């Protein structure tokens, strides 16, 4: 982005799954839209660290936005996964009770679910549940079976929405942090200082060039209150509610077929045991309200807690040695206990889409269309001419899931798909290059990992990390030292250990001159 001012009809602040869903929906119209994301990649916040569950929709309060959008979002996830070619599986779920008293709670959930429009709900005995899920705890007395729920790859869902939006003309400003927002002034004064505010334009001040937009959509995740409070006449407060997870080796991937929930509490749906759409097993999350918005670190107490709680759901939880990584995510919890999708108080053309905590991922396919309907109340949107919008996207090649014949065919055409870089997940050089050269392509190790799984397996990048760094450097035409794990400060290596024929030295001198 140059230093000249850029004018947009709509600027979306936040490139998570919510922002990307809105961006894709807006890309159907002739307006000029952009996404402003402070991280180096889309989906770096809450979207990258969650359960990856497509919830049935039984949990939310009937009449709430959560309930409405959950049903709509989950209902369209399967179709969207075909349009945008990302991994989704309808694996079903169960809510279990280990007490007789819990039956009443399950019945409430069932009634609530039916009110919300969830189909196929059934309460079954512990014994019947154990026939469906043999590893279920012997203590389980009753279970609510939800056949409609599923699992999805949260990274690929976000990337798919973002890529498709980009392909259809939405501009993405990554690495761009919003520092302040000036409200539009209605009159253009003669005074020089007033020139910076074109009539009807918000002036979004960032750490790069400023961006102007007629309308702002605030999809800034845990920072949603922060952005809101820059302009609105009231104050919002979002709590960052941390959830920790442990991810198990794929050898435990079929430990359960369904997602196993415990009875929900005030803090959320409790610790679950689930397969992931990629065939790992995962447990978590707990819920802990943190100070600030950056604490996505795990704690010993938290990791112990989720293992202890998971043991209530299943009979013999695989041992700690089966865990390949643990992580934490932050939910953007609003004290209003529902999503906030509305015009910010005292600001025209400023739409908050905040407090998107669970079941936000399930809702994502529905949030885009819902918000766009909201936009239409104050901005005329004109559909692009037929044939100029393409809602389909081809997903990343995933060799490991193909038959040998299919793989052989691809490798015969392009040998780079025969050069396996990540041994654990069988990810080839061709797949990594794809992840880099797409619109909104990966520029970091984490970006590769989330798009095509290189480094996400049981050795966690031990073997492939140096090779992935080299491929990134080569494809992006930068020095290996400039390849980061994720953020700009997450430098992996500090240059070369010694000068080779003075090459390194001359480069350093060059850098100093800049």
């Amino acid at each position, binding site marked *: 982005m140059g230093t000249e001012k850029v004018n947009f009809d709509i600027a979306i602040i936040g490139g998570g799954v919510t922002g990307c869903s809105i961006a894709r929906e807006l890309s159907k119209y002739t307006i000029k839209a952009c996404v402003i994301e402070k991280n180096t990649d889309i989906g770096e916040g809450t979207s990258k660290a969650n359960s990856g569950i497509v919830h049935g929709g039984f949990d939310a309060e009937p009449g709430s936005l959560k309930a409405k959008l959950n049903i709509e979002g989950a209902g369209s996830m399967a179709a969207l996964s075909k349009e945008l070619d990302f991994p989704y599986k309808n694996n079903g779920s169960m809510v279990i009770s280990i007490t007789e008293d819990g039956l009443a709670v399950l019945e409430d959930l069932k009634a609530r679910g039916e009110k919300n429009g969830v189909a196929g709900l059934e309460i079954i005995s512990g014994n019947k549940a154990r026939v469906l899920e043999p590893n279920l705890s012997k203590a389980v007395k009753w279970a609510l079976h939800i056949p409609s729920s599923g699992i999805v790859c949260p990274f690929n869902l976000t990337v798919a929405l973002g890529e498709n939006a980009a392909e259809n003309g939405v501009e993405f400003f990554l690495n761009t942090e919003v520092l302040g927002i000036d409200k539009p002034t209605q009159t253009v004064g003669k005074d020089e200082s007033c020139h910076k505010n074109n009539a009807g334009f918000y002036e979004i001040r960032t750490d790069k060039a400023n961006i102007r937009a007629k309308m702002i959509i605030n999809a800034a995740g845990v920072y949603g209150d922060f952005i809101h409070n820059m302009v609105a006449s009231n104050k919002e407060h979002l709590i960052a509610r941390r959830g920790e997870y*442990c*991810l198990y080796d794929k050898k435990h991937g079929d430990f359960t077929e369904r997602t196993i929930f415990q009875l929900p509490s005030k803090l959320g749906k409790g610790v679950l045991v689930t397969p992931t759409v990629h065939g790992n097993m995962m447990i978590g999350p707990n819920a802990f309200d943190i100070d600030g918005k*950056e604490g*996505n*670190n*795990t*704690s*010993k107490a*938290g*990791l112990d807690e989720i293992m202890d709680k998971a043991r209530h759901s299943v009979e013999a939880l695989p041992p*700690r*040695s*089966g*865990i*390949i*990584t*643990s*992580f934490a995510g932050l939910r953007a919890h609003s004290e209003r206990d529902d999503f906030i999708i509305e015009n910010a108080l005292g600001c025209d053309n400023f739409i908050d889409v905040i407090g998107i905590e669970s079941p936000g991922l399930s809702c994502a396919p529905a949030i885009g269309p819902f918000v766009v309907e909201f936009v239409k109340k104050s901005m005329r949107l004109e559909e692009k001419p037929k044939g100029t919008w393409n809602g389909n996207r081809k997903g990343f090649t995933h060799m490991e899931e193909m038959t*040998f*014949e299919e*793989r*052989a065919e691809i*490798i*015969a055409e392009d*040998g*780079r798909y*025969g*050069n*396996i870089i990540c*041994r*654990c997940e*069988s990810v*080839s*050089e061709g797949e990594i290059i794809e992840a880099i050269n797409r619109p909104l392509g990966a520029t970091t190790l984490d970006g590769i990992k989330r798009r095509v799984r290189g480094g996400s397996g*049981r*050795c*966690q*990048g*031990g*073997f492939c*990390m*140096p090779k992935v760094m*080299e491929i990134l450097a080569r494809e992006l035409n930068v020095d*290996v*030292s400039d390849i*980061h*794990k994720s*953020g*700009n*400060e*997450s*430098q*992996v*290596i*500090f*240059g*070369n*250990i*010694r000068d*080779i024929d003075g090459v390194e030295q001359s480069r350093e001198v060059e850098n100093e001159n800049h």
Partner: protein
Amino acid sequence: MKIINRELLVIGGGPAGLAAAVGAYEEGIRDILILERDIEAGGILNQCIHNGFGLHTFKEELTGPEYAGRYIDKVNGLGIEIKTNSMVIDLKPVENDENKDSYGNLATVVSRSEGMYQIKAKAVILAMGCRERPRGALNIPGFRPAGVFSAGTAQRLVNIEGRNVGKDVVILGSGDIGLIMARRMSLEGARVHCVLELMPYSGGLKRNIVQCLEDYSIPLHLSHTVIDVKGKERVTSIVAAQVDENLQPIPGTEKEYKCDTLLLSVGLIPENEVSLSAGIEISPITNGPVVDEAMETSCRGVFACGNVLHVHDLVDYVSDEADVAGRKAAAFIRSQGEEVNTKEHARHIETLGAVRYVVPQEIHSDNLDDEQIFRFRVSKPMGRSKIVVSIGDKTVMSKNKMIMAPGEMENITFKKKWLEGTGADDKISISAFEIDKEFVI
């Protein structure tokens, strides 16, 4: 897909694969193919540029690349074919085998230059080595910044790629790679604050503790672990704490180290994805295949050796073991697969006392050579100890050791003649125990 027939396929071109191929060649097999997934043969030795290799095999001290070079030269000199950049992604026994010429196993290979193809081999030797245990398996809490490396990854970056991975380093785990990297990072000008070890003893070789830590005044803190990793993007510090006898951190013993790098040397795991695809039985203790005296796995005609079988301390022992696997695979090929023994006749070797595991895990008495080497590790450091081999209630061997440690592999030579006069159902056992302590089976 194209199918190629070979007599012997060796999966892996590291020290185990190279020595196995040489062993098979010396037993008369000529149609041998070694597949190596990296760009060159030599395996992990290529990044082990320190010396200390080959004292047993070559009676001299070599660096890792030199040791590998000796075997690569030998393999090349014998005209054994090595294909690099070739990775086996699947192995299956050939099914419904009525035609004797087609016995064997079918490996599926991917290669950048040759595409995807299959190799039908009369015998296969698994020599894929091992990988490092990642941070996740320890569940170390904290952030997940850049700057946390497994020690072997850091070793590769420093020694092969010539990169600087950190300036201020803490190392968790006193396995050999961790110790070697403590010295290596010091030599590159980094400050190595300490090596932390969860257990009350080191998992590495004594000589490495002396040469890599003591000589560089790097403290080794036993019974310590990392309880927090700080720094959102790059490591800024780690918090260490002492642990109690249950390996739980003791409150009040926390100490924060400002550093930019945490190296992990917390264990190696045999890499058996290919073995699993063939349905080979894996030992839960070694994490490698269960093998018999011929290093043959539960899958007929598939042999295993080196770190894919069990993690070794010295490469010399890998070479020895691989040589046996190569020779036995050759014998298998020569017999046209008509083995006299079946797995039903295998006799399991029991491990008692401090013996954590033994390889091979089972033997066929009839097929034993006059002498059979058993390799094992003990589960704890031991002072003056006894190693005892028993068959039924008869003690056939007993020897004293001054010291034994989990980090050092032990071996005994089992003599076939010991079996004379014993019953086929008599249990064979290997035990190790400290002499001054009571030992009850």
